């Protein structure tokens, strides 16, 4: 099970704080994004935009890095307010 957590405005766009995905083998961050887009089309534009920081177990992860069973993924958008 991969747990994906949504933060700030992504929580609103996805309509949820977290979601779990079963995977039989490790997948890349890019593949996980694809899964998320199919599951929640409202996230498509944002996930395609390179404006969301993806963390895997509290560490920044690039699109080609792997996510495996038991990992916690965070989707962190930037904030503009000051």
């Amino acid at each position, binding site marked *: 099970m991969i747990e994906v957590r949504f933060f*700030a*405005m992504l929580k609103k*766009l996805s309509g949820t704080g977290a979601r779990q995905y079963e995977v039989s083998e490790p997948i890349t961050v890019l593949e996980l994004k694809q899964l998320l887009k199919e599951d929640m089309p409202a996230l498509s534009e944002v996930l395609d935009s390179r*404006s969301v920081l993806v963390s895997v177990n509290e560490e*920044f992860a690039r699109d080609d890095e792997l996510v495996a069973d038991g990992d916690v993924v965070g989707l962190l*958008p*930037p904030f503009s*307010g000051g």
Partner: protein
Amino acid sequence: MDFTDEQIERYSRHIILPEVGGKGQTKLLESKVFVLGAGGLGSPALLYLAAAGVGTIGIADGDVVDVSNLQRQIIHDNNTVGMAKVESARKSIEALNPDVVVNTFNSRLGIENIREVLRDYDVVLDGSDNFPTRYLMNDASFFEGKTLISGSMFRFDGQVSVFKPADGYPCYRCLYPEPPPKGMVPSCQEAGVLGALAGVIGVLQAVEAIKEILSIGKVLAGELLIFDALGMSFRKVKVRRDPDCALCGENATIKELSLYEQAPCELRT
């Protein structure tokens, strides 16, 4: 430099800290910090930087004080409503600590002169309220080799990080190569923010600026701190330099400053 009796008393709680001492306090008095935005984040940051005896503080903001600012922008008050924010901030700082020299920039900063202005400062603090300015400050700080202490907020959440690409740490673009699409930028109705959150985040920025000047402790370089006020939790995410970063990467494509457009609503505080 020699302290006056008044300074020894004023900074005594710093001077008795071994990590600061007279030497550190002198460093602070000789330091120059540039603060972009005298708003929610800038207000508390400016007050603590001034109280700490940062010798020169540059403040840039093009707005005037509005009553709706006072819920969080604590450097301003009822008596300065209608006044330029930079002047209102100067007034508060001068009342707090006469040791501080304040330089103000009221809407005269842009692509043409921002680099030249930053050149005079040691540390840059970003408390701006829109993405175009955040990217501009990141790029200008990178080109001038200045440490950028970034803070930002959304409703009940805040982020803080220290960008030092000159020392091998990531810049803002390493984390966020592109600004978010329109759908992700909060609308006017959604742009509310918990006033006291600005205090938490702005003061964390001041703490990082002071540590950076004193070269003590470990700043949030290579780390993104995320504060959730409702859950009352602090989390840190490890971040790293992107070798493909368009600004600080090996094959950088951004060679000069530029500004992109954004919807007018989002540009407002």
